[in-house]
C-alpha cells in the first residue's frame, strides 16, 4: 500500500519560472524508480515536492492512496537520504539513526532493536558510538541510509546520494543500495544526474529535461528504444553519435546518405517505417559507438563496412575508442584493442544499421 502517484504537478517560482511543468508518474509498491536528467531539469524539485519540502503549485501527489499535498513532511511517512548526508554533527551514529524514532515516541527497546537491525544490515555496528566527523564518506552514506531504514517508512527518497563520493566508492555504494532494496523492498524514488547509476539501480527510469518527462521505461528499453533525441543522447556512454543525413529512395530500397561518398542501405525491416520521411531535410542518424566497430569476417545483414580517416585513438583497455569526422561532425566508434587503430590513418569500420535510430531534428522525436 505505498504507491506514489504524481498527477499533473507543477512547480513555479516567483517571476513565472516553471521548474516542473505538469508531470504525471505512477510508482508501484516496492518499485525502485530513478529520476534522471541534467541539472535544472526539475528532478530534485519533484523529489522535494514528494517529500513535502517544497509546496506544490498545482496538481496532486498521492502516497499510499491518499492525497498528501497538504500533509507536512513528518506526517507523510517518508524517509530521505540527502546528497551531503545531513547527519546531525552533534549526535553519535546511534543517536542519528534513533532521532526520528525518538521524536515519534518509540520505546527504548524498539529503537535499539531497529537501529541494531539496520546497523547490522549496513555493516556499521562498530560505528554506532562515533560522531559523523569521525566517519569516512562511505560510512556517512551508510549511516544516512540507516537513518532512513530504521523508520520503516512507506517511501524512500534519495537525492543524489552518491555524488559526493569518489568514483570507486560510488560503484561500491551503488551495489550496496541495490542490495538493501532487495532486502527491504520499500518503494523508492531516487534522483541522480548520472545515467549509469540510473540504469544500474532502477526498475524503471524516468528521464526528465526542462521540467517535463521525456520518457519512462525499464533501463534496457530506454537504451534500445529511446523515443526522443534527448533520451537517445543522455542514456549510454560514450554518447550516441548524431549524424545529419538524407533519406533517399532508389529502386524500392532506402538509403541513408551521410555525405557524397558515404551512404548506407536501410535494413529491409525498417523500410516501411521510414518511407514517409524520404526527402525530409532535417533528419539525423543516431548510431551508438558500440555499433561502429572494426570489421571481422563477413558482414551480417544490415551491417556495412566503410573507410574512415581516424583523428584520435583512445585506448581504454578492454576496448579502444576511435574518433573520426563525417561532414564536419565528430563521431566515435568502439573497436577491439587489437584492431590496429592508428591516429591519422585510414581504417575500415563496420556500422551496424540494425541498431540505428532515425530522428526528426525539428521535433526531436525518434522515428
Amino acid at each position, binding site marked *: 500500500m505505498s504507491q506514489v502517484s504524481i498527477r499533473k504537478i507543477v512547480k513555479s517560482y516567483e517571476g513565472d519560472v516553471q521548474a516542473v511543468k505538469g508531470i504525471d508518474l505512477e510508482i508501484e509498491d516496492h518499485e525502485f524508480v530513478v529520476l534522471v536528467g541534467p541539472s535544472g531539469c526539475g528532478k530534485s524539485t519533484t523529489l522535494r515536492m514528494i517529500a*513535502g519540502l517544497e*509546496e506544490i503549485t498545482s496538481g496532486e501527489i498521492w502516497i499510499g492512496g491518499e*492525497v498528501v*499535498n*497538504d*500533509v*507536512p513532511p513528518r*506526517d507523510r*511517512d517518508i524517509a530521505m537520504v540527502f546528497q551531503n548526508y545531513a547527519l546531525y554533527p552533534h549526535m553519535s551514529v546511534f543517536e542519528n539513526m534513533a532521532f526520528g524514532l525518538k521524536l*515519534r515516541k518509540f520505546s527504548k527497546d524498539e529503537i535499539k532493536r531497529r537501529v541494531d537491525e539496520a546497523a547490522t544490515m549496513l555493516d556499521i555496528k562498530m560505528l554506532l558510538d562515533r560522531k559523523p566527523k569521525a566517519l569516512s564518506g562511505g560510512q556517512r552514506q551508510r549511516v544516512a541510509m540507516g537513518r532512513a531504514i530504521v523508520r520503516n517508512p512507506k517511501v524512500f527518497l534519495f537525492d543524489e546520494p552518491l555524488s559526493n563520493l569518489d568514483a570507486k566508492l560510488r560503484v561500491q555504494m551503488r551495489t550496496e543500495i541495490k542490495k538493501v532494496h532487495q532486502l527491504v523492498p520499500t518503494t523508492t524514488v531516487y534522483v541522480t544526474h548520472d545515467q549509469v547509476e540510473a540504469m544500474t539501480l532502477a526498475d524503471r527510469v524516468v528521464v526528465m529535461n526542462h521540467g517535463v518527462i521525456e520518457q519512462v521505461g525499464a533501463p534496457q528499453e530506454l537504451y534500445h528504444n529511446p523515443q526522443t533525441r534527448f533520451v537517445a543522447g543522455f542514456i549510454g556512454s560514450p554518447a550516441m553519435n548524431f549524424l545529419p543525413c538524407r533519406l533517399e529512395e532508389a529502386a524500392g530500397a532506402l538509403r541513408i546518405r551521410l555525405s557524397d561518398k558515404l551512404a548506407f542501405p536501410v535494413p529491409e525491416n525498417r523500410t516501411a517505417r521510414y518511407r514517409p520521411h524520404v526527402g525530409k531535410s532535417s533528419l539525423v542518424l543516431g548510431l551508438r559507438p558500440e555499433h561502429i566497430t572494426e570489421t571481422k569476417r563477413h558482414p551480417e545483414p544490415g551491417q556495412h563496412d566503410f573507410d574512415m580517416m581516424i583523428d584520435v585513438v583512445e585506448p581504454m583497455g578492454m576496448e579502444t575508442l576511435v574518433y573520426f569526422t563525417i561532414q564536419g561532425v565528430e563521431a566515435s566508434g568502439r573497436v577491439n584493442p587489437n584492431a590496429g587503430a592508428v591516429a591519422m590513418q585510414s581504417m575500415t569500420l563496420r556500422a551496424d544499421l540494425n541498431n540505428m535510430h532515425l530522428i526528426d531534428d525539428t521535433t526531436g522525436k525518434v522515428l
Partner: protein
Amino acid sequence: MADGTMVMGSGAATSPAPRRVGSLKKLGRRRATTALLLCAPLILLVISLKIYPTFYAVFLSLLDRKMNEFVGLDNYIFLLSRPSFQLVIFQSCLFALTAVMLKALIGFILAHLMHNIRGRNQRIWRGLLLVPWVIPLSLSTLTWWWLFDPSYSALNWTLEWLGFDPIPFLGTTWNARIAVIAVNTWFGAPFFMIMYLAALKSVPEQLYEAAAIDGASAWQKLIYITLPMMRNIILITVLYSLIVTFADFDIVRILTNGGPQDSTHLFATYAFTVGIQSGNIPRGASVSLFMLPVLATLAFFVLRDVLKRSKEIST
C-alpha cells in the same frame, strides 16, 4: 495552543481524515507569524531603546534648559560659538584619528609577528597580548591613572631611575591628550591584532608560494598580496573602530575627566558633564548629537561593505 497540539497529535496516530486540517499553506502562514513573533522581542528592544531615544534626543536638543520651550537650533549655535566646545570637536577628532591609526598600525605589526609563530605557542602569546582587551576598561583605566599619579607614579620612578626627568603625565594639555590616546591604543590594539591575524590566516599559502617562485621579495609579497587580500578587513575594522573610539567615554572620564582646563573632553564626556552633572539635558543632548553626522557617515560605509560581502557570499 490547542490547535497546535491537535495537529501534532494527529501525525502520530495515522488517521487520514484530520490530516488535511493542517494544510501546508496554512502551515506556511502560521510559520510566518511564528517567525515574526520570534523576532518581536528584538524589534521591540531596538525600537524602544535605540531608535526612539535617537529621535527623542533630537527633540530634547531643541528645547530650552527647563524643557518648556522650543528654542530651535539655539543649543547648537550656542555650543558652536563656545571655545571650550570647539576644543571638544578638535580633541574628539584628534583622539579618534590618532588612536585608530596607532591601533591599526600596532595591530598590523602584532598580527604579522604572531603569524610567524605557529601552533600551540601562538595561542599562548595571543592570550597574553589579549589581556588589555579583556580587563573591564574602567578598571584598567583606573590602574593607568594610578600609574600616572603625580606623586606616586611608578612610571616616573622608572624614568628617574634611568636618569630622566619625571613627566607630569596628566598635568599639561598635550601630555594629557597623549596619555588618553596611549591608553586607548593599549586597550584597542589587541582587537585589531586578532582581526588582522584572522585575515592573514585566510590568505591562501599558495599565493605566497607562487609569488616566491615569481621572485617577489618579502616587501613585495606584503604590498602585492597581503595588503590587497586584507583590504576589506583592514577597512571594516578601521571604520568600526573609528565609530567606537569617536564615541568613547570611559578612558577620558576616569583618567582626566576632561581636564586640564577642559582640553581632553570628548563629545561623550562633555555631554555627560553638561547633561547629567550640570543637569542641562537639552544642551547635553545637542552635544552628543554632534556625533551623529560623523557616525552616520562611518556607519554607511561599514554597512555598504557588509551588505556587499553578504551578497557575494550568497551568490
